[in-house]
C-alpha cells in the first residue's frame, strides 16, 4: 500500500524539531525503517513528518567519565563498525548482527529503535540489560531517564509528544563486565520470537549485578528479576525455573506462550555460558 498524505519538514536542529513538534499529529522521522513501513501499511497516518536526518551532533559514539554515549542518529551499520563500541559496549556489538538485515542497518538508527520501542526489538532490551539511560530534550530542557523507567507499555515510552531522544548512555564495560546475547527468530534478521540480552559483573567465580532483559515476551522488554537472583546465587536451573514467575508471554502468530517460556529457558542456559566467560 501507499502512505496517506502528510506534510514533511526537515529539522535544522533539535530545538527546531521540538518547535515543529508543536503541530498537531507530528511524528519524528529518523532511519524510518519501522515508521515508513507503518506508513505504507497505513497503520499510522501523521499530519506532519519531521525529518531528523541532517541534524548535527547526534551521530557520535563517545566515551567519557566511565560512560559510552551513542548519539540517536548513529546508524546500526556505523555502530557495527565501531571499534569503540565493540570495546565499551560488547553487548550491543553482539546484538547488532541480529538487528534487521544489512540494508536495514545501513539506514536504521540507534535512537529510532529505542524510541520506537518495539517489544521484540534487540536494542531496547540491551539498554535495559546495561542499566543505561536515555538522554531526552523537550520544551522544558534536557533530562535523563533510566531504562528501567523508560519503557512504559506497547510502543509507549517516557517520551512525550514534544520530546526528542538525543542519545543513549551506558556504563562503559570494564575488565569484570560480562555480557551475553541470544535470540530465536524464524529467519536471520527478523524480529525475535524470544530473545535475551544480559549483563553482569564477575566477582571471582560469582556473578553480581545480574540483569536479564527478555524481549518478544510481553509489551515491553522485561527484566526477569527472580531469575537474576537465582543466577547471582550460581544456580542456573533454579534461574530457569524462576522464569515461570518472571515471564507470562502471550500467544502470538509466531509461537504460543508456553513455547516462548520454554525457549526463554533454553536462551538462559546459552547466555549463562557466555556470562561465565571473560570477553576476548
Amino acid at each position, binding site marked *: 500500500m501507499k502512505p*496517506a*498524505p*502528510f506534510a*514533511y519538514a526537515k529539522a535544522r536542529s533539535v530545538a527546531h524539531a521540538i518547535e515543529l513538534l508543536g503541530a498537531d499529529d507530528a511524528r519524528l522521522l529518523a532511519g524510518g525503517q519501522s515508521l515508513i513501513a507503518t506508513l505504507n501499511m497505513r497503520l499510522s497516518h501523521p499530519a506532519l513528518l519531521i525529518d531528523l536526518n541532517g541534524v548535527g551532533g547526534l551521530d557520535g559514539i563517545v566515551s567519557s567519565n566511565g560512560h559510552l554515549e551513542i548519539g540517536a542518529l548513529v546508524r546500526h*551499520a556505523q555502530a557495527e563498525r565501531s571499534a569503540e563500541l565493540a570495546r565499551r559496549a560488547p553487548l550491543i556489538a553482539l546484538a547488532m548482527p541480529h538487528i534487521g538485515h*544489512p540494508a*536495514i542497518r545501513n*539506514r536504521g538508527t540507534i535512537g529510532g529503535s529505542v524510541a520506537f520501542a518495539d517489544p521484540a526489538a534487540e536494542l531496547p532490551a540491551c539498554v535495559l540489560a546495561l542499566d543505561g539511560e536515555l538522554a531526552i530534550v523537550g520544551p522544558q530542557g534536557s533530562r535523563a531517564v533510566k531504562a528501567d523507567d523508560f519503557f512504559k507499555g506497547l510502543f509507549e515510552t517516557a517520551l512525550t509528544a514534544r520530546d526528542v531522544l538525543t542519545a543513549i548512555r551506558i556504563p562503559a564495560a570494564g575488565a569484570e563486565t560480562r555480557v551475553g546475547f541470544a535470540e530465536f527468530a524464524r529467519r*536471520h*534478521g527478523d524480529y525475535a520470537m524470544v530473545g535475551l540480552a544480559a549483563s553482569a559483573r564477575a566477582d571471582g567465580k560469582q556473578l553480581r549485578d545480574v540483569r536479564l532483559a527478555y524481549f518478544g515476551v510481553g509489551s515491553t522488554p522485561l527484566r526477569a528479576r527472580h531469575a537474576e537472583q537465582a543466577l547471582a546465587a550460581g544456580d542456573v536451573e533454579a534461574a530457569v525455573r524462576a522464569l515461570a514467575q518472571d515471564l507470562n508471554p502471550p500467544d502470538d502468530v509466531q509461537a504460543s506462550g508456553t513455547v516462548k517460556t520454554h525457549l526463554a529457558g533454553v536462551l538462559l542456559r546459552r547466555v549463562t555460558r557466555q556470562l561465565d566467560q571473560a570477553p576476548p
Partner: protein
Amino acid sequence: MNARFHDIVVTVNGEETPATVDARKTLVDFLREDVGLTGSHVGCEHGVCGACSVRVDGAVVRGCLMLAVQCNGAHVETIEGVADTEEITDLQEAFIARNALQCGFCTPGMLLTAQELLAAGGVPTREQIRVHLSGNYCRCTGYQAIIDAVEAVAQARHSSQGT
C-alpha cells in the same frame, strides 16, 4: 516549509534529476514512476522482501523505506546504473550460468546486496553469504544457486587479484 510537495534534485545514476514530489512518495515509486527506471521492484512495501533495494550515497537501502523527498541532494544508483558501469557484469554472468534466477523479480536486489558484500573484499563463507542475503526473498530458486553464484564470483575476484 511544512508542505506536502517539495522540489528536489536527486543524482540518479550520475544524472542530476530535478523533480517535484509528494512527501509520501517512496524512493522506489519515484524511481519507477517519475524517472522511468523500473529495474527496482516493488514487492512487500514494508522492508521485508528486498526487491526494491537501491544504493543511496553508496549504501544499499530499501527503496520502499525511504522517501523520495529525503533523497534531495543524494546520489542514488539503481540496478540499471550499476549494470551499465559494468561493476557487476561478472556477477550477472554467474547468475545466468548457475540458474540463480528464474522469474527475475528478486534479482536486481540480490545483485546489489551481493555486490555490497563482495565489495567488502575477501572470500565470504557460504554462511556469511546467506546471512548477508537474508533480507532478500527469492521464491523461485531455493537460494542454493544464488549462494553458488556469489561464492564463485568471490573466489574468481579474489584469485584474479592475486595474479
